């Protein structure tokens, strides 16, 4: 099942969203790369990359604002693992909902990316 990686400036925001997603798509694995290591607000490419190493299948990254996107793209360049990982630009909450549901239906990474893009692109 395609994993989601939620990249947010706020750890609480990402944790709250994960809780919401569990209601809709309880089986979809959701990983978090949110906030800085000391718990403060921000995003960090190396944390995102570390989270990518925990993937149990291919992964889809969704981000909140500004530098989260820059850090996600940088993390993708730094990542040297075997999983196929993509970033898709979409409103974080709505995009994650759709992606989680599609993953729960065992769609492929490409199908999920296409689905999210066609809804929000």
């Amino acid at each position: 099942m395609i994993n989601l990686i939620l990249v947010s400036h706020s750890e609480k925001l990402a944790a709250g969203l994960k809780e919401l997603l569990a209601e809709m798509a309880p089986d979809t694995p959701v990983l978090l790369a949110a906030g800085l290591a000391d718990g403060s607000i921000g995003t960090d490419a190396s944390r995102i990359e570390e989270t990518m190493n925990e993937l149990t299948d291919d992964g889809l990254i969704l981000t909140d604002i500004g530098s989260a996107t820059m850090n996600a793209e940088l993390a993708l360049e730094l990542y040297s693992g075997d999983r196929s990982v993509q970033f898709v630009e979409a409103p974080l909450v709505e995009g994650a909902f759709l992606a989680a549901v599609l993953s729960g239906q065992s769609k492929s990474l490409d199908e999920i990316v296409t689905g999210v893009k066609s809804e929000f692109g």
Partner: protein
Amino acid sequence: MKLSTETFREALLEAAKQMEQHKDELTDLDREIGDGDHGINMSRGFQAVQKELEAQTEYEDLGALSKQVGMTLIKTVGGASGPLYGTAFVKFAGAFKGKTEAEGDELAAAFKEATDGIKMRGKSEFGQKTMVDIWTPFYEALEQQTDLHQALDQALTDTKERVATKGRASYFGDATVGVQDPGSLSSALLLRAIVEVLR
């Protein structure tokens, strides 16, 4: 005008000192037209760089030094500046790979690559009142072998009068005219420290 592994290390230690001295100024500017953390972020990042450079005094080449600095900035700066400065140094690492010295066209090309990296990462162009407005005239002055200090001073003056159309400052619109862009100022501090060591 030559940069060596040793002098680049010296320049980065000087840049760390400069970021610390200008920490409040960078933060105050960012409070006016941003989210008010630029000085704190740059200080945190360059303090981490300083610590590493003091612990390790010898580097294999300019590439190895650049790579370590880039990864440290990515991990420690936070905000938008982390991936932007980090990308610049990762690009330096590629351009300087296997070289213990760089000068002339080679040096200019490395700074152009770093600038292109910043533009790619930030999806930005010259003229949007961002750090790109400092890095671009700087590598052009290196290419044309004109006065580098003068190029940086002029770039800062020009950038100050522009309207921000990129990043969080763009939400402040016309209010950004006449206020220096904090990322441009920190870029000038870094690049000035590098100019000082070119022989």
